[in-house]
């Protein structure tokens, strides 16, 4: 009988660990401990700073994705928003051909234009989805194609250099970028956990019909979620553009699956109603650790993609296990 009892308690402990908010963080710790001995330069301060710098913009985009996923949607247009905002901002402020070149207003104006543009694309997505009842997947996929095409066409696929140093510092200096990302993270966290908007968002993700019958302004909340996602993608564009000191129409084109992968690894559900800022942070951290360690091992890009795919699959497996355990313990 005692064998059964210890078996049970072991399973309860395992279940509790799996269901904990910090599960993915523990996964990160285990991963680092397992990989560091074989990976030269992985556990160094330089490398940690490097990971942090590449993690921050990804985290900011993933925050927006988290909001949209909680509402039961998906936003595939984020990469096009990043490219479009990057070149628009650069067009406004670059020192050669910029509309406001050398003006003291150049940087603030460029930032305002970028954020507004991101919000506008988000609003377009949200309105198309709620007013015309189109599926989020297809709306944001179409937006991604159209707006990234627009970005390439506007610049004739040329990058724009010569950006003001003050702007480059925003993304280039890790301390400033860290401040911006933290502010965004705390802001979204408060929104989700403490505000009326957050309550409504989760309710809509769980059951939009019930939310509507209970007087939740469903369309307004969903549009706001896409607007937030657009603005956060624009904020990430500011960081990325600053890091590369270049306005590029194809900036961030490859990060779409990283963003969705990291958010879902963190524990946010693709079916809506479930997600937290902390989860997303850990998901992004995990993905970046894997990315970075594989890079350091000098694996070819193909091997890297294969291993990354396997890791994401493994995380998804753990997540489904987690969901099942949560269900049996309810």
């Amino acid at each position: 009988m005692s064998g059964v009892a210890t078996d049970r308690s072991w399973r309860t402990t395992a279940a509790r660990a799996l269901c904990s908010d910090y599960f993915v963080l523990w996964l990160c710790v285990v991963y680092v401990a397992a990989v560091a001995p074989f990976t030269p330069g992985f556990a160094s301060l330089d490398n940690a700073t490097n990971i942090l710098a590449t993690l921050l913009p990804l985290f900011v985009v993933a925050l927006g994705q988290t909001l949209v996923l909680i509402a039961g949607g998906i936003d595939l247009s984020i990469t096009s928003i990043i490219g479009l905002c990057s070149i628009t901002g650069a067009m406004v402020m670059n020192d050669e051909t910029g509309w406001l070149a050398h003006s003291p207003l150049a940087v603030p104006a460029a930032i305002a234009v970028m954020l507004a543009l991101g919000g506008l694309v988000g609003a377009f997505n949200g309105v198309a989805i709620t007013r015309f009842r189109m599926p989020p997947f297809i709306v944001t996929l179409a937006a991604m194609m159209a707006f990234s095409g627009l970005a390439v066409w506007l610049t004739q696929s040329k990058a724009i250099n010569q950006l003001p140093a003050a702007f480059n510092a925003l993304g280039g200096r890790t301390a400033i970028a860290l401040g911006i990302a933290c502010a965004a993270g705390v802001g979204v966290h408060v929104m989700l956990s403490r505000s009326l908007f957050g309550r409504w968002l989760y309710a809509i993700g769980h059951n939009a019909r019930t939310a509507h019958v209970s007087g939740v302004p469903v369309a307004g909340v969903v549009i706001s979620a896409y607007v937030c996602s657009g603005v956060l993608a624009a904020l990430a564009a500011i960081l990325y553009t600053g890091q590369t000191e270049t306005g590029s129409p194809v900036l961030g084109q490859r990060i779409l699956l990283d963003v969705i992968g990291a958010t879902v690894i963190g524990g946010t559900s693709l079916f809506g109603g479930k997600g937290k800022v902390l989860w997303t942070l850990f998901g992004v951290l995990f993905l970046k650790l894997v990315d970075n360690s594989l890079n350091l091992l000098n694996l070819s890009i193909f091997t890297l993609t294969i291993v990354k795919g396997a890791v994401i699959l493994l995380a998804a497996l753990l997540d489904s296990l987690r969901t099942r355990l949560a269900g049996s313990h309810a």
Partner: protein
Amino acid sequence: MSTAAAVEFDGIGQSFSGVRVLRGVSFTVGASRTLGLVGENGAGKSTLMNILGGNLRSDTGRMILRGQPYAPAHPTDATRAGIGLIHQELNLFSNLTIAENIFLTSFPRARALPWIDQRTLHARTAALLRDVGLELAPDTLVDRLSAGERQLVEIARALSLDARLIIFDEPTTSLSARETGTLFALLRRLQSQGIALIYISHILDHVRQLCHDLVVLRDGAVVAQGPIETFSTPAIVSAMVGRNLTQLYPTRRGAPATEPALEVRGVSQPHIVCDIRFTLRRGEVLGLSGLMGAGRSELARILFGLDPCSRGEILVSGRPLAGANTRRRIERGLAFLTEDRRHEGLCLEASIADNLALASIRSHARTPLKLIDRTGWQRAISTIREAVRLTAKAEDTQPAQTLSGGNQQKVVLGKWLLASPSVLILDEPTRGVDVGAKFELYQLIMDLADRGSGILVISSEIEELIGVCDRILVMSQGEIRGEFSRPEFSSERLLAAALPRESPA
């Protein structure tokens, strides 16, 4: 006994995370007999049937099926053993045809080829549909069937798998009176063919009409069993709830005031409702009776702004609503407990607390950022939990889907009570709710009326309306066809008014 019993349960016990839901359940379903299984929600009926159906393995005890030990590891084992389960929530694919649904796991094949033999499929489905008395083409999409017709398709499926023991879990909850009649005729035919049945229901009249034997479950244990003739209805009820329920409906203390809470003036929507006029007074419980499809739920949805209306005026507390959307109507004091609890009443996976707060959370938002005042919110939640007498076993953070039907309905009612409505519309408030919780729900509804709200109750159970209402309106074919005050109440009159008139040929 000459023939072996259809199934014998012997000491079945089951626990979920330390909570015992079944303890030593033993009873026998005789060959070719029909056994009624009754008990409050959460008594363990569904768990027991899941064990029989191979969805769950019991911790202790054994089952004997027609003389053979039976321990299903998987639902297909149950199917192979000749057990058919007709679920409360029907398990059909609405995007497939009747034939495809029936033969989903055993399509007749063209010989040795992986193609489906369409002709055999068609013929066998047609034969089965004839058996269950459903006059429809086998290639009709299930999407287009009514709840009653779907039920018959499920039964046809069980028959196609040669079921010798069929379990019915609350089969009549979503059926109209006529469909129920058809179902009962079919069940009697199955009985005469020697098929054993387990019939689970809250409607004791039905159990009495159909069953030979009765088993009453309470808190996971058998508290009474025997031939149905040996039980009186009050005896069954007191065995179910474990106390003497002397009355099924609470006594009405208050009386309606004179000022109107809701005035409906000539509301019309083509093909849905026609020129609806009535006044609901403050403190009044007004019933809306009628057959399924009479337009009652549709009227409620129009009143709440969920569906459009082309003509007419609606006034709440004397002021017109004038095209307000659902959210504004809630602010104006309307509340609507919908018929479909799972899809429109609750966020099943969200916590009890979040569900309770959903309609009134706006009033707890402070500062321009609309942050939630968590202390006030928490206080409101615990007050309302107490007010609706929600089971103390459930934590605030537990998902709503873990509650029994009655407690789920209390959560939905609590959600609306928190919004302090001046008009509460309830559509089938006690569907799938057990006897004890029903009484509590009625009491809550009457208390709200006594505090001055107007209540509109839609129900298909005429007895229920007679038990709780001050006045009853009867709808048929989208019109109000009768109005009855308390002294005039009788099921015969209400039913007569509800029957559709012959349309001129």
